Structure formats: structure tokens, C-alpha cells
């Protein structure tokens, strides 16, 4: 029946010819596992194509829905986690495989006449693969992707003369926004994809025309093998192994939930995807006006060299041992690429900033006493930096403390200020850190007294005048970039005449905000929490901060949080706490000193930041904001089933072969 069908088709369309064209080929020297890289790249490309198309069933390329729609796919659609995860890890696998393939072709000298077009199409495919990675990263419109695109387009903008124009064309506007997302989307799914398919067609046709290059040793070339089935057999084995590794990565190292893109977030430290880290690191060698040399000059030169390679190196010799210059250049390029990538991976921009600050101040952390160093840690963990700035880092709601050590205030004054700020200024908005023990107080004051040089430091935020301080006492901080102080409540607002309703707090009326519907990043939320929330809710939300005048006497702990907020459905749990974060709440009691500010209403925190903080609060209460609602098959189970099926099949086939062969 199949023969008849094949004949029927052959009479109308050259099916058999096409199959022969595709698989019938001699391989000089025989098949080898060394030749599987190209085919494996195509297998991963097919995975990318299918999973990419499938994501479009759910993904929406608009700035208000991209993040949510992708997270819906990942958590609520059966196997959505697998589809997105394979696409995420497949992108990295593509780049690794393409580079390994390029390295093998280079070592084998397979770019030489008559294979120049195969090589050129291959270089095009390398660039296109990098382009797919660059344009794909911002599509989730999360913090990672957003900032990767921001930095990436800025690199393009540093090109002399045409940089600004190129950047504007990439962005579609003067700043990142909907038009940027639309452009990256259409480049990713259409224009660059078409280039990729076209480049692949040219590459494969050219490969078929010239055939495999085989070993450089003539003796080894004497033996001959066929592409079908032996080479395809090797390709299939490696392809399946890579496929299973990809599933393993998706299951055990799932793509992170990076939190929604927040253009005004200053706490997120952007870093490019791993495959652009070499460029990111290389830029450090080209400061100032030389920057375009690093961003564009050297990469362009490297690409030009790759393009010209078959025309510069025209000797037919393919044995690497007799091509010392080519091998040396290749070795140096590989070491530089890997070295810069590893250095970029290990570098931490936050540390870089901190060390810069340390260099510019006489009081580097290296010179701090151990007590002052502990105090420095406390300064950050207690959230002091949320309001106070030191060396330009930190909030500006409170006085800048960069020169506190030379301000003339005594140790006792500072200790008193921390324990009971009202003793110095009855209207201060600073919370009392009365829960600190003597040792912690001493450490904190040691740190404060170590601050300040007197001459070369500028105070980034002037210490507010008494009038300004008084104004801050009655007006909630409403500037998005400024960290809020807990609101101090005027007596008239809290004096409930003893008619306590029994509730520990009076929540302000209002519905959940936009943040409640967004799956924030717990990881980023922990950073925001320590900046914004620890001064009242304690380190990691464990509470213990006193609130004189409130019925409870303390600011509520969030770890664990009051059970009335808890719900195992992360959406409902997030809504429950979102109302408080958006609209604030006033603790019950005769005269509570501290109240929860309306972070959302006053735009003190962005909705993106609130969603991240909510994800963190859920996490410390053992509820995962991004839990899989509908996995299809749970990830680990899926991996084990897949692994078991392939293993059993492999063993069965091997045993079958062994019995047949030995029989």
C-alpha cells in the first residue's frame, strides 16, 4: 500500500528524489560522533520553532499583557511550563551548539574551497541566532528582558554617527515602550526567523553540493560511509540526549519569574544574557570615548574576520597541526570569549558600586572596626538605608548620614535618637528601634560615627530644615523614588474614644490594585522588602518592632502573617495583603505612633514593586506566588517518565540487537 502511495506521489511530485537528495550522501572517512553538531542544532531549532509557535497560542505582545499572558501559559496551561521552558533553554542550547559547530568546522578546515558559501551561510546563521536571542529576551516584558533590551539598544546607540538613529529605529520611539515590544516581537517571530530559515536552506544546499569534508588525513579518508543511516543514527542518539538534558534543565532549573518590567525601578541591577556577557565585560576595557570601539569596533572586526576567513586562508591544507597561525588565532579568540564570559558572569555590579564608594571615602569597609562593620550590616538589614542615604546610596526621606561621624553629635545622642527619636523631636517620623539590644545599638552607632571625611564628600541630599521635617511629618511621602517613612498619625485621627472594635487594625477602604493580579518576583521582592519594610516589620518580616500607643504594642509580624490574610490560593492571598499595601491601615489603639502607609495610593511604590513584595511576603509564609496551577503532568514526574521511556527503549533495542547479532 505504501509502495503504491509512494509511486502515486512520485508520478506527481519528486518525493523519492527529494529523499535521496536529503539523505543519500557519502561521508569520506565514515560517520562520526564528531559530525553530529550541525544536525543537533537543527533538532534544537525545530524544538525552538515548535515551542515558539505554540507560545503564540497564549502570549500577547503588548506591554500590559505580555508578562501576564506568558505567566498564564507557564502556570495555568497544561504543559505550558514545558513549552516555555524548552524555548528558554533551547535558545541557550542553540548558541552553544552553533559555536561548537563553528569551532569544529574551523578546526577541520571545512571553510576552505569549495565550501565558502556553506561557511558564509553558517556565519549568517550564527549572527541570526544571536539576533534571535537578543530580540527574544525582552518579549516576556519582565525585569530581565526589559533591562537587557534597554542596555542592548544603548550599546547599539553608542555606534558613532548612526548610533542614535539605529537606537531610535530599534525602540520605535525615544524610550522603551509598546512600539519597542512590537518591533522586537516582529523581528523575532518573522523577519529574523525568515532570515534563519533562508540561511539554513542555503547552508544545507551548499553542504549537500560539496558534501562532507571528512578527515584531513588521506589514510582515514580512504574509508567511506553513508549519511543514511549511520550518521543519522549518531545524530538521533545525540539529539535525544540533548532533548532529555533540555527537559531536565526545564524541570530542575526552570526559567526564573523575574517580576514585571519596571522602568523606574532603581534596585534592579541589569545584566545581559550569558551569551552577551563577553561584550558586557569587554566594555570595561574601553572607558569613555573608546567605548564604541568595544561595543561595535571589535565585534564588527571579529565578524569581518569570520566572513573573510575562507578568502584570507586559501591554502588547501586542512591539518590543524600544519595551520599554526589559524589555530593560534582560534585558540586566543576562544580563550578571550570564554574568559570574558566567565568574568562577566562572576562580576557583580552592586559590588562594583560598593567598592567604588569605598575607594572614594576614607572610611572603607576594610578600615571599619568589626563592631562598625556589624553596624553597617544592621544599617541595611533594619531598613535604615530605605530613608537615609550614605555616600549617595539609600533613600532620601531622612537626613543624609554620609558625614554623621563629623557632625558633632555624641554617642549618647545617637543611641537615644535610635531608641527613642521622639526625645529629640516630638514630631519626627523616624520609628523607634527600641527592640535593639545594647550591643546592636553600640554597633550601629560605631558605624554612624565612622562615617564622614569632611572635605571631598558632597552631601547628596541636604539635611532637611526643621520646617521641611515638620512638613514630612504630616505628609505621606508621595514621590515614587523616595522610600516612605511609616506614617505618623495625628492624635485626632486615632483617638477612637476607647471604642475599640476589637480589630487590631483599621484597614483603609479600597479594592486590590493592579499588583494583586501580577506574579511578582519573590527574589526581587526580598530586596525591596529589606529596603522598604524591615524598619517596621523587622528583618524578614519577623516583627518585634514596637508601636507605642497601639493595642498590640508592636507592628504586626509578617512572618508568619495574621492567619486572616492567608490563603493557599496565591491570587487570593495576594489580594488580601494588596489592599493593605495599596491603601494602608491604621492600628487600633489610643494613640498608635506608627501606621501602615498607603504605598500604592501615594505611588510611593510602583505596582510592579508591590507585586514583587507581595510575592516575597507569600514566600515567607510558604505560599508560592508562581505555583503551577495546572501542570498537565507535574514536571519531575514528566522528566522521570520521559527518561524511563527512553532508557527502557534504548535497553530493549540494544538487547534486541545483541541477541540478533550474536544469534
Amino acid at each position, binding site marked *: 500500500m505504501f509502495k503504491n502511495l509512494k509511486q502515486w506521489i512520485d508520478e506527481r511530485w519528486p518525493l523519492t528524489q527529494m529523499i535521496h537528495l536529503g539523505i543519500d550522501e557519502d561521508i569520506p572517512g565514515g560517520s562520526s560522533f564528531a559530525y553530529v553538531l550541525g544536525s543537533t542544532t537543527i533538532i534544537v531549532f525545530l524544538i525552538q520553532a515548535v515551542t515558539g509557535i505554540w507560545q503564540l497560542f497564549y502570549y500577547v505582545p503588548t506591554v500590559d499583557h505580555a508578562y*501576564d499572558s506568558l505567566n498564564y501559559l507557564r502556570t495555568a496551561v*497544561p504543559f505550558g511550563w514545558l513549552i516555555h521552558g524548552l524555548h528558554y533553554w533551547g535558545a541557550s542550547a542553540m548558541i552553544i551548539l552553533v559555536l561548537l559547530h563553528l569551532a569544529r568546522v574551523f578546526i577541520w578546515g571545512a571553510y576552505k574551497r569549495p565550501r565558502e558559501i556553506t561557511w558564509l551561510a553558517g556565519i549568517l546563521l550564527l549572527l541570526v541566532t544571536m539576533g534571535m536571542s537578543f530580540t527574544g529576551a525582552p518579549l516576556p516584558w519582565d525585569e530581565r528582558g526589559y533591562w537587557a533590551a534597554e542596555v542592548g539598544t544603548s550599546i547599539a546607540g553608542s555606534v558613532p554617527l548612526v548610533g542614535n538613529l539605529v537606537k531610535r529605529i530599534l525602540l520605535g520611539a525615544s524610550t522603551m515602550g509598546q512600539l519597542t515590544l512590537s518591533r522586537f516581537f516582529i523581528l523575532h517571530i518573522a523577519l529574523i526567523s525568515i532570515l534563519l530559515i533562508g540561511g539554513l536552506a542555503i547552508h544545507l544546499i551548499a553542504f549537500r553540493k560539496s558534501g562532507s569534508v571528512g578527515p584531513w588525513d588521506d589514510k582515514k579518508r580512504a574509508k567511506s560511509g553513508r549519511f543514511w543511516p549511520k550518521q543519522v*543514527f549518531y545524530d538521533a542518539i545525540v539529539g535525544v540526549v540533548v532533548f532529555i538534558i533540555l*527537559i531536565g534543565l526545564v524541570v530542575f532549573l526552570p526559567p526564573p519569574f523575574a517580576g514585571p518590567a519596571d522602568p523606574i525601578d532603581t534596585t534592579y541591577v541589569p545584566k545581559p544574557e550569558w551569551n552577551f556577557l563577553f561584550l558586557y565585560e569587554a566594555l570595561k576595557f574601553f572607558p569613555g570615548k573608546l567605548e564604541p570601539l568595544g561595543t561595535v569596533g571589535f565585534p564588527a572586526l571579529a565578524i569581518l574576520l569570520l566572513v573573510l576567513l575562507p578568502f584570507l586562508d586559501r591554502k588547501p591544507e586542512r591539518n590543524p597541526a600544519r595551520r599554526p597561525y589559524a589555530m593560534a588565532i582560534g585558540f586566543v579568540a576562544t580563550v578571550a570569549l570564554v574568559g570574558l564570559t566567565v568574568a562577566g558572569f562572576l562580576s557583580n555590579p552592586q559590588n562594583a558600586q560598593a567598592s567604588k564608594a569605598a575607594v572614594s571615602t576614607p572610611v572603607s569597609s576594610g578600615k571599619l572596626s568589626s563592631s562598625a562593620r556589624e553596624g553597617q550590616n544592621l544599617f541595611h538589614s533594619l531598613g535604615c538605608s530605605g530613608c537615609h542615604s550614605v555616600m549617595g546610596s539609600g533613600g532620601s526621606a531622612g537626613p543624609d548620614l554620609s558625614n554623621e561621624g563629623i557632625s558633632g553629635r555624641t554617642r549618647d545622642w545617637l543611641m537615644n535618637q535610635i531608641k527613642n527619636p521622639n526625645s529629640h523631636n516630638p514630631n519626627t517620623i523616624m520609628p523607634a528601634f527600641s527592640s535593639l539590644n545594647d550591643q546592636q545599638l553600640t554597633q550601629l552607632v560605631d558605624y554612624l560615627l565612622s562615617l564622614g571625611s569632611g572635605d571631598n564628600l558632597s552631601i547628596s541630599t541636604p539635611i532637611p530644615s526643621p520646617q521641611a521635617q515638620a512638613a514630612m511629618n504630616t505628609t505621606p511621602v508621595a514621590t515614587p523614588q523616595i522610600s516612605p517613612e511609616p506614617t505618623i498619625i495625628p492624635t485626632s485621627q486615632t483617638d477612637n474614644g476607647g471604642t475599640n472594635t476589637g480589630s487590631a487594625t483599621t484597614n483603609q477602604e479600597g479594592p486590590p490594585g493592579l499588583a494583586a493580579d501580577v506574579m511578582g518576583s519573590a527574589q526581587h521582592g526580598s530586596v525591596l522588602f529589606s529596603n522598604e519594610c524591615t524598619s517596621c516589620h523587622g528583618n524578614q518580616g519577623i516583627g518585634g518592632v514596637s508601636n507605642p500607643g497601639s493595642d498590640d504594642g508592636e507592628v504586626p509580624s509578617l512572618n508568619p502573617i495574621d492567619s486572616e490574610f492567608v490563603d493557599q490560593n496565591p491570587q487570593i492571598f495576594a489580594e488580601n495583603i494588596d489592599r493593605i499595601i495599596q491603601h494602608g491601615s491604621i492600628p487600633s489603639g489610643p494613640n498608635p505612633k506608627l501606621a501602615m502607609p498607603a504605598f500604592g495610593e501615594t505611588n510611593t511604590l510602583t505596582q510592579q514593586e508591590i507585586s514583587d513584595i507581595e510575592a516575597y511576603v507569600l514566600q515567607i509564609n510558604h505560599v508560592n506566588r508562581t505555583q503551577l496551577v495546572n501542570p498537565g503532568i507535574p514536571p519531575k514526574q514528566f522528566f522521570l517518565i520521559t527518561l524511563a521511556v527512553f532508557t527502557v527503549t534504548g535497553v530493549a533495542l540494544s538487547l534486541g540487537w545483541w541477541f540478533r*547479532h550474536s544469534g
Partner: protein
Amino acid sequence: MGQEKEGTEDGLKRRGFMELTIAVLAALSGLAIGLPLIGSVIKPSLQKGQQRFARVGKVDTLKTGTPEDLNFADITEDAYIRSTDLHSVWVIKNSDTNVTAYSPICPHLGCRYKWQADSDHFVCPCHGSVFDKDGKVLAGPAPRPLDTLPTKIENGDLYVEWEQFKEGIPQKETI
């Protein structure tokens, strides 16, 4: 030029084994990725939308035994888009702990029926279906009684779970 045992019997066996392995691995890989892809498109299409209880009012403000038409805001989840829709519901307080809620949609063809206090009946203006307080059909073409909605009372608040049902059939079937 040497060949890799192509023509020998052993070579043919080897070739058969490799072709079989390629076919099996391709088929299994196709299944491993194909089934999840199909599942991701088909399964969500067959799932019913999840409903949640929405607060409609205080129980102590309702008059016992008298149907009242209450409006409430219900959060609707359409995939990843959440929106708030206004719905109305007929509620009858039987006691402080027991309230009946009726969908305001006539089970005949979807018109909105009304309470007629003088006759103590619900009457649909479209085709004249008449229901008593218990939702029972007294007259007209309605194929089934009024559709009740799940309710719960917590801390004196009445919550209703909004649902819609197929019209024109004798069974109460959720859409």
C-alpha cells in the same frame, strides 16, 4: 575506497537496526513533545471557568421571606485578564443562616424576570412564565424551576457564586 560493511549480511542487519532505532527515537521524541503540545491547546478548551464567591450584602439588612434584587460586583477571570463585572441576583432570606439566591435569568430563553409583590410570584415578561417563591414553575413555557446559585454566609455577610446555565432545557446545566 573502503565501505562500512554496506553489502554484507552483517551490514544489512546493522542497517536495519539503525533504521529501527532512528524511527523509534524519532517517534518517542515526537510523542514526548507532541502530546504536551496537543494537551496545552485542547485541555484548556474543555475546562470550565472557575468561579469564586462574591459578597453581595449584609444578611441582617434583608427582610425575611421577601425576594430582593441585589446587584454585586463579581471578579471575572478571562485567562490572564481579570475584570470586574456587575451582576444581579434575586435573594430570599429564609432565616439568619439560610438564604436562597436565584439567577435572574429565566430558564426558558434568558429574559430577566421580575418579582410581582401583589401576586407573590416571579413573572417573566417575555413569554409569561410564572414561578413561585420556591422557584417552582406555575405557568408558562419555562422547562425547569428557577436556577439557584450557591450561597454562603460569613460574619453576617452573604456571598453568592455567580454561574450561568443553559436555557431552554429541563436540566440545570452549567455553561
